[in-house]
Every structure is written in C-alpha cells, then in structure tokens.
C-alpha cells in the first residue's frame, strides 16, 4: 500500500463517518418532529377512556372515538360545529379571494396616487397587535346586532374577510413577475383593463389564485380566538376550533380526550394535504417577495 492510497482511505473513512453521523442526527431529529403527530394519531384510536393514562402507547385500539365524535350531538355537537365552520369558510373564501386578488392586481399593475400610501398604511396597520382591534370589532358588530344567535355567523364572516385586503404581499409579488409586455400587447389589441385582469392575468397567475383560494378557505378552520370572543356561550354557533379547545377543558377532558385526538386528526388531514400541495407556491411567493 502506498502512502497516497492510505491517505485517501483515511479521508474516505472520515467522510463516511461524517455522513453516518449526519444521517443519524437527521433521523433523531425527524423522530422528534414526527413523534407528536404519530402519538396523536395513536391516541385517537385508543380504547381506554380517560385523559391521562399510565402508558405512552395505547393498550387497545378502537374506532369508537371517531364514531362518538360524529354522532354524539348532546354535549359537544361536533357535526354542527363542522357545518358551521364549512359555511363560514366557503363564504369567507369567496369574499377574501376577491379582495386579495383585486388589491394585489391594482397595486401591481395600475399606477395611481393612493398606491404608495396604501402600501405604507398596510405596513403600519400590521404593527398593531391583532387583539387591539378585536375588542373594538366586537363592539362594532354588537352595535350592528351581529353578536346574537345565528347572526354571529355573519359577524364571523365579516371579521374573517373584511381586512383581507391588507394581505396582498404574496399575490402582488407573483403578479409582479408576470411580464407587463403581455398586458401592453393586449391593450394595443383593444382590451380594457378589466379584460386584461380577468382574461389574461388571472389565467397566467393560476398558482397564486389557487393559493389564495385555499389559504382563505383554511383561515376560519384554524382561528379560534376571535371565534371564542364572538360566540361566547352560544354553543350552537361554535366553530370546530372552539369545539376542540373545549374538549380539553376541565369539565370535558375525561370524556372527550380521545375524541379531541380524533377531531384533531380529522381536521388536520385535509389541511395538511392542502398545505403540502401549497408549499411550493408559498416558497415561490417568499423568494419572489425577497427578491423584490
């Protein structure tokens, strides 16, 4: 064996050792990251009742938690909460998609006096803590009579969609990347700005349109704090998020702990799928926005 070869061997064994170490560390980290999700899925199938058990893994498995979640309408009416949230999410989705895309398109393509001030105002408003407006929004909705009974639903829709015009950044970043020469060509051919918006930019920006639709659809499913403030004790107006939160409160936790796990899994699966599908648009929007 020559000196050269032994040196190369040494280096090779060192890279192998580093590679093994890297993969072991990644594996440990991945286990830490996935374990809570794995645990909640197992808990949702747990047969033993009660909140806290003395074993990490369930002793027996059952589907009853899911059955109870969707059939027990007496104490915590999960099916009702589910329909409530679905209705709110659909309407919110329509309104806020329109708002976000309109604002983003105007800021990206049109030039008007109010453009810069609008973007500055949006930035300043973003610095206020969200809860500052929450209390006042509640009072405003109350003076409009939208805080009692089934009107709460309208209140929630308004609150979720009214201010979405402030969240234009990602969509605007995407519109900015579409070459303006396409618009100009269309205008020369006699298209109005409205036609450019609906028939040229929208089809070209399909990914960001889908992104906007899905993110605004998800929002009502995952907000729990405003829904809690607005619904207060009106149990038949609860959304899914409040329902899940309630299941962990002292008075319910013993009966509903495993159902909470089941509910968490039921809500998470579609949202996780949407998220995994959407992440590339998110990444594109991010790097686009940074490139500015």
């Amino acid at each position, binding site marked *: 064996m020559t000196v050269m070869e032994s040196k190369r061997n040494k280096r090779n064994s060192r890279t192998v050792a580093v590679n093994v170490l890297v993969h072991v560390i990644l594996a440990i980290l991945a286990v830490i990251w996935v374990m809570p999700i794995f645990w909640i899925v197992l808990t949702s199938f747990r047969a033993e009742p009660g909140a806290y058990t003395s074993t990490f893994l369930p002793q027996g498995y059952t589907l009853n938690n899911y059955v109870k979640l969707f059939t027990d309408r007496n104490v915590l009416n999960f099916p009702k909460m589910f329909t409530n949230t679905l209705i709110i999410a659909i309407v919110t989705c329509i309104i806020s998609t329109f708002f976000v895309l309109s604002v983003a398109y105007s800021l990206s393509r049109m030039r008007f006096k109010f453009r810069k001030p609008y973007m500055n105002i949006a930035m300043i408003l973003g610095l206020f803590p969200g809860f500052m*407006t929450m*209390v006042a929004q509640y009072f405003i909705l109350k003076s409009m009579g939208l805080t009692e009974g089934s009107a709460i639903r309208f209140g929630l829709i308004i609150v979720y969609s009214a201010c979405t015009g402030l969240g234009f950044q990602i969509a605007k970043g995407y519109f900015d990347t579409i070459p303006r020469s396409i618009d100009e060509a269309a205008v020369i051919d006699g298209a109005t700005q409205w036609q450019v918006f609906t028939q040229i930019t929208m089809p070209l920006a399909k990914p960001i349109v889908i992104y906007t639709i899905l993110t605004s659809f998800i929002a009502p499913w995952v907000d729990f704090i405003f829904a809690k403030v607005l619904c207060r004790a009106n149990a038949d107006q609860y959304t899914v998020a409040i329902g899940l939160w309630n299941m962990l409160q002292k008075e319910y936790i013993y009966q509903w702990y495993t159902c909470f796990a089941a509910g968490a899994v039921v809500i998470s699966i579609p949202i996780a799928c949407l998220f995994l599908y959407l992440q590339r648009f998110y990444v594109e929007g991010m790097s686009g926005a940074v490139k500015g």
Partner: protein
Amino acid sequence: MATKVNEKITVANAIAKGDLWTRLSAAIMGAGMFGHQQIVKGIMVLACEVAFIFYMIASGISNLALLPSLGTQEQQKVWNEAKQIYEYTAGDNSQQILLYGVVTLFVIAAIILLWILQMKHSYKLQRKMEEGEHIPSFKEDIISLFNGNLHITLMSLPCLGILVFNIVPLVYMISMAFTSYSKEDEKLMLFDWNGLTQFQRVLNLNGNIGKQFWHVLGWTVVWAIFATFLNYILGMILAMVINRKDTKAKGFWRFCFVLSIAVPQFVSLMIMNIMLQPNGAVNVLLRNLGWIGASDSLPFWTNVTWARITIIVINLWVGIPYTLLQITGILQNIPNELYEAARMDGAGPVTIFFKITLPYMLFVTTPYLITSFVGNINNFNVIYLLSGGGPTYVGDTAGQTDLLVTWLYKLTIDQQYYNLGAVIGIITFVILTIITLVTYRNSASYKNEEAFM
C-alpha cells in the same frame, strides 16, 4: 394640455377663480358638476350631502355633543309604586357614546374629503369647458371604471372593509386608553376621559401594574430574540445539512419536518400542551423508561424557568420547518464562486458559514427577519395555547410567560380592564415601530442595495 390644467387645480383656486357653478358647489355639493354637463354625478354627490345632513340632525350632532363628557346619567334603581318593584333606568352607556362619537368623526372626515374632491373636480370641469376639451359623460365614466380607473372598482370594497373593521376599531381602542373604562372602580357603564393617567400607571416602576409591565416587556423581548434568531440559525443549519451533496433522501427528510407544520398550528400546540402536562405522555414515557421516579414529573408548565425554556424549545419545533421551507431556495441562490474562492483560500466549514453564508442570508432576508421578529412579539397562539401565560403569581394579572399581547388579551377579555389593555397595545405598537424603522434603516439591504449583485 391635461397636465397644464391639472397644475392649477386646488381648492383655493376653485374658490378664487371658479365660475358661479363652481363657487356654488362650496355650499351645494355637486352643483359644479350639475352646471358642467355631469348631471348624474352631480345628483349623486348632492345625495351624499343630503344624507350627511340628515345623519347629523338625526344622531350625529348629539353623538358629538356627548363625546367630551362621555355621558353623565348614571344607571339608577327607581322604586315603581304601581308595580311594587325596583326598576333600572337606562343610564348613559359611555362605551356606546365613544363608539358613535368616533364613527361620527369618521363620517365628518369623509364628507370633508368628498367636499374637497368635488370642489377640485368642478373647477377642473370648468377649465376643461373653457379650453373646449371633451367632458366625459356618465356612461363614459362607468366604462372607465373598468378600464383606466379599474383600481377604483377593485379597491373600494377592500378599502371600505379595512376602514370599518380595522382603522375605526383601532382609533376607537386608542381613544379608550385615555379614559377610565375599566372594571376597576366599576367604570364599565359610565366612564370619563382621564388623560394620561393609565400611561403613567403602566410606565411607573413602583406600582403593581408598572412592575408587571416591565417584567412582561423584558420577557417579551427575550422571547422574541430567542424565538427569531434560534429558529433562523438552526433552521438554516438544518437546511444546509439536508442540502449537502452527500445527504441521501433529501425529499424524505424535508417531508418529515414540513409535516409538523402542515398540521394546523393550534392543534399541534394543544397536543404539545397535553403531552407535557404533569401526567402527560412525555412524563409517562420518561417514567416508563425509568429516567424519573414512578410518581415524579418534570415541571414543564409549573416552574417558571422550565415553562420559559419549554416554550422556546417548542417554538423551535414549530418554527424551524418554516425557516427550512423559506430559505432553502435562497440558500441555493448563493453564487457558487463565493464558496469556491473561500475554499481555495483554505477556509473551513465554520469560517465559510460565518463569513459567507450568514452575511449573504442576512443581507437577503432582513425584511423576513423583521417580519418574523414582529410576528414573534405579537405571537399570541404559542403562548396562549401552550402555557396560557402561566405560572401566575397571586395578585398578578400577568403570568410569568405572558407576552404583551397575551397580557393585553387577559386584561381586556378576562379582566375587562379595557383602558389598560389599550395602553399596552399602543406601547407595543410604538416599540414595534421603533424596532422596525431602526433595523430596516440600518440593514445592509436598505443601505447598499447592490452589495451582493
């Protein structure tokens, strides 16, 4: 031509040099349009003025009149002889008076704005007629709303939403900070302006509230720094490790980490909360493994230091995948020549990270860092769902892990100390504005836009 006309369009000019119609529109809004061939528009503007006058007579004036005093009539118990019961007379509701007063002020501001616009517009129409230019008809105006003026069509509804459900509430809340609106001293129905009293109370180091404020502020800053920079650096290292040439199954590792943020955040935070309870899954696991005694449990949420560290660590669990997702693309954009040059000069991996990767990333992602710092200061979910701000000492309204936002929430929703909550909100805003401006102004990407190009 058009620009020449535009230069002289001011309200002062409109009054000084306007013709009869233009001057008339100072009193009768829309008259200028009426007299200059834009009849429909003129009628619409006039209708706004009429509606405004009706509103002011019906409720606006009384709203404004009550605003300085915020109401004086207290709710009273009156003995009703006929029915032989006590009845409550409706007193003044200060909260409502304040809200309506603020709304009325906004309506007045809107009508003033409309007045200025229509004065200018009338004068412009007059000039156009004098120059013999074409005056757009109502139909042409409508068509232009879908063409050159499309932004007006698209933006008016979103702007209205923001105005009514963001700006008006903010002004309303800010004005609350200067009142005595609070459950303390039973000021929930009838309250008064009391100037800067609450600000003094919050900033005063010797008072109970003041002590809690500085305490919470300190923890908020510590938390935001840890949460932002630990996530950033560790996320970047993880991204680099996954992107290494020799790392196998890159997609799989990325999937494992991204999976944890695909689960809705409030769900995963609640799961973490119950897993770390005294009898939760983690303690059970440790007991079964024999690492702690059979009835022992680690005080994740009950000990202050434990709770703080737990929160920061769990936030890493939540945040690192986000960083991973966001900066993988940017990392790949770093010019390879930079690395090669550094390696030729004999730089090791650590030197390369601190001399090339980190400065480059900081340069590109400063705006992102500022946003996430602001987001962390206002990070309600993580604290509220994990520790609920606890542990809390007796007699305090703020727990030991409360941030300014969660304290604000507790003060307003739970305690109904609305004025204190509003003060905390304003102070948070001021702090954030200062931090944002200072860091942004000093950031490399602001000072020197082409450093890395």
